[in-house]
């Protein structure tokens, strides 16, 4: 099982990589001891979005399906958590609300994905349909300000936002502040490791093969539609996890978390980071979120313009992603330093990348 942590589908292997990984993890674990609670809360906020970015990386980078619908499933699980937590009461029931809301998002992804994939929708049309579904949900929720729009005792509240749900809790203990931060770090480690194992497994081989050449994959006996649906459901479930954690973190959610500007953000994070590698997406998304939040303190408009400029720069200058590009340079340099004879294979790889772009 552990050998699946390393493989052709993931950058980074060997003692050096895993030593760096453990060093970063150790740094993350001791960070709350040296930071004030405001900064720890901010870090928790950045980490919330990482799940959505990793999910899109799986779908787009590995599966070749550009979904513009990450915030659709973010919203379904976010509102789902609110509705369930309000109706089921606080305490440990919030954990059930979290799990159920992610499950609901995955079921919704299964239904939408089934009709799209079995209907033969692919390429740019996949993005168009998922974006349309996202906008439908955002517009629908935007007109639910009236008191008649409620589920049980939970009012949807239109653009005023749904509020009144409890944060995650175990019994009387609220998972907030440093506790929430540690839960986030643990979840990210679990999700990151699990995704590495998935993409390096035989299932991951077929997911990547389907991205590369779906007809050839089918002619090797694989029903590529099932693999695409699995990828879509897992990726959407991770967006749902972000959504449920977001609502729990802020005890608040509005339709603007789902609409067009919000839907574009995961695309920017993953494109800038490097969609074809989980580690690049993890690191790049965190850096972008940190930068975005820092600039937003001074000007939200400037932060949005910067995100647009970064997307443009990525498409023009580094279509494979900036962080991934830097990562590959480091790996190439390290490989040449250790084994000078690996040059030709790496040169072939680089040449093909350039040809494709």
């Amino acid at each position, binding site marked *: 099982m552990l050998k699946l942590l390393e493989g*052709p589908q993931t950058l980074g292997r060997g003692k050096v990589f895993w030593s760096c990984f453990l060093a970063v993890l150790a740094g993350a674990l001791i960070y709350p001891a040296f930071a004030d609670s405001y900064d720890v809360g901010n870090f928790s906020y950045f980490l919330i979005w990482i799940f959505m970015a990793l999910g899109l990386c799986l779908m787009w980078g590995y599966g070749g399906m550009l979904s513009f619908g990450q915030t659709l499933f973010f919203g379904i699980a976010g509102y789902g958590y609110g509705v369930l937590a309000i109706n089921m009461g606080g305490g440990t029931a919030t954990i059930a609300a979290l799990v159920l809301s992610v499950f609901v998002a995955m079921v919704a992804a299964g239904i939408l994905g089934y009709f799209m994939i079995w209907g033969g929708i692919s390429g740019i049309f996949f993005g168009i349909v998922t974006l349309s579904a996202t906008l439908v949900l955002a517009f629908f929720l935007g007109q639910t300000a009236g008191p008649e729009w409620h589920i049980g005792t939970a009012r949807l509240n239109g653009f005023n936002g749904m509020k009144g749900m409890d944060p995650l809790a175990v019994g009387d203990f609220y998972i907030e502040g440093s506790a929430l931060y540690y839960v986030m770090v643990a979840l990210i480690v679990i999700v990151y490791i699990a995704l590495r194992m998935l993409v390096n497994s*035989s299932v991951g*081989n077929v997911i990547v093969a389907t991205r590369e050449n779906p*007809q050839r994959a089918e002619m090797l006996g694989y029903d590529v539609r099932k693999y695409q649906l699995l990828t879509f459901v897992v990726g959407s479930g991770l967006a749902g996890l972000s959504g449920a954690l977001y609502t729990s973190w802020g005890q608040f959610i509005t339709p603007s978390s789902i609409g067009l500007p919000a839907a574009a953000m995961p695309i920017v994070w993953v494109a800038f980071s490097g969609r074809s590698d989980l580690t690049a997406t993890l690191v790049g998304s965190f850096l972008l979120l940190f930068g975005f939040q820092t600039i937003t303190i001074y000007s939200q408009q400037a932060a949005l313009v910067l995100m647009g400029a970064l997307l443009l720069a990525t498409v023009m200058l580094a279509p494979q992603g900036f962080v991934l590009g830097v990562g590959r340079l480091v790996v190439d340099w390290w490989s040449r330093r250790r084994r000078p004879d690996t040059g030709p294979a790496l040169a072939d790889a680089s040449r093909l990348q350039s040809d494709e772009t």
Partner: protein
Amino acid sequence: MPLVDVQGVSKRFGGLTAVSDVDLTVNSGEVHCLIGPNGAGKSTLFKLIVGLYPPTKGSIYFDTVDITNERPYARVQRGMSIKMQAPSVFKELPVRQNIQIALQERFSGPERSAEEDRLLTLLNLAPDSDKLAGALSHGQQQWLEIGMALALKPQLLLLDEPTAGMSPEETFKTGELIKSFNAEGMTVLVVEHDMAFVRQVAQRVTVLHLGKIFARGSLETILQDEKVAEIYLGKAHAH
């Protein structure tokens, strides 16, 4: 005993009838070549048999099972294996991983590694196994795709112009490879233009012309048919 039985199959694209009322049987254990001039409908018939096109009319049976409406993956699971006309490999993945993806459903662990090595050596791709498939030459990509098709251990190997882009030496070697797998019991259906290759491998030949069956039989019979020589081979080749 027929392994593939095509009964009255037609395929129309708008006003064009590419394949018209074709009956074709491929018997178990034979190497059957499908030949004909450009535009005869060979590739269309091939795609109908592998499931890339649904027929407008008619039925296709594999091992007595009606597969007319099955998708290609289901036909592969029944025992077909397919090599397309243009090299169809996973270009951004290493050569070894291409073979792994083909093997992984049937082999695991050390057995899979051994089979990978055997195929890579058989196909002369072992020295390039860490290269990306897209960095191979056209001929090597053809070999790789043939290797992926063979990795499935099929009952029926379907090859659409397998030697396109290969040197005469590579073409001959491909023919010998096909004959060796046929000797082990594999049935092979080949669509091919290269008559030297057809002579090397064919046990039975079907000639298509304008979407219809024009002639069928042994290669010797076909070569002696004046009408076939006129439409396809050129009279000089017939004798």
